[in-house]
């Protein structure tokens, strides 16, 4: 059978929460719960930063041979509205979540024509089960010109190639 691949929100180097049929919510607290607590505040000036979120591939069942070419990309359109963005970086290791500026790259520049390489550090081919590839660290930024309210979800795609 083909592998059962999941995306987990990481809480440690080898611990995370399965996000199958679940979403990721940027918050002002370092936790994985999806609710309306700990909302991000619009600053009177400057920029506020959410706590970082770290996502990683998890093989719930193994591939027949291997999996490689782990990628992630957005749809290229930031529909969150004025003053709201998401920045990212990648790493081969887990780091404690922070709510200070990570000086990352605009997530919406990572598209299907220029995806994020999700196994540049922890390179494939990947076999067996468990956590594979790199950590994708995300952070929402909220500037003073943002509008209040609940945001609609954006589409984020993770792709993998299996043999």
């Amino acid at each position: 059978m083909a592998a059962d691949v999941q995306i987990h929100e990481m809480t440690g180097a080898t611990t995370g929460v399965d996000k199958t049929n679940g979403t990721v919510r940027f918050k002002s607290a370092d936790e994985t719960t999806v609710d309306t607590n700990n909302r991000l505040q619009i600053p009177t000036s400057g920029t506020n930063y959410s706590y970082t979120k770290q996502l990683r591939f998890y093989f719930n069942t193994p591939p027949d041979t291997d999996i490689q070419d782990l990628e992630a990309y957005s749809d290229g359109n930031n529909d969150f509205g004025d003053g709201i963005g998401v920045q990212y970086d990648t790493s081969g290791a887990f780091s404690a979540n922070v709510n200070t500026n990570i000086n990352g790259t605009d997530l919406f520049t990572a598209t299907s024509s220029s995806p994020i390489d999700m196994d540049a550090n922890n390179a494939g081919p990947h076999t067996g089960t468990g956590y594979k590839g790199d950590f994708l660290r995300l952070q929402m930024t909220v500037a003073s010109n943002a509008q209040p309210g609940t945001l609609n979800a954006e589409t984020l795609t993770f792709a993998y190639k299996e043999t």
Partner: protein
Amino acid sequence: MKLQNVYSWEIELRDGSVSRQYENGKEQTWKKLRLDEIVRVSFVPVVNILPRHDCFIDISHGEHFIKRFGKGFIKQMPDGFRLAEYVNCCQTNRYRFWVFHSNGRCLITRPDFELRI
């Protein structure tokens, strides 16, 4: 049935022997086959309402099999992360033949084209 298992592969060699993804109670690999002798790669639906697809590889005119692979696309939708699409691909030196598991449609591209949806 999970989306990634809706199709399985079947490969025929020049001598008429056929290998299938699931035989003798376990999953097989095509990597042990003589790749230069592969003349047919088929994607066979487990669910009969989907179409079967056959790639005939004309080795007598310089065409040859390169590899077979699957590709998964997990998307965060409003209702959460899920496997939104899974494709099977047969690559020859002349094209890539993609089969979409969600609806059985196919797509033919250049051999260096990387499908992202």
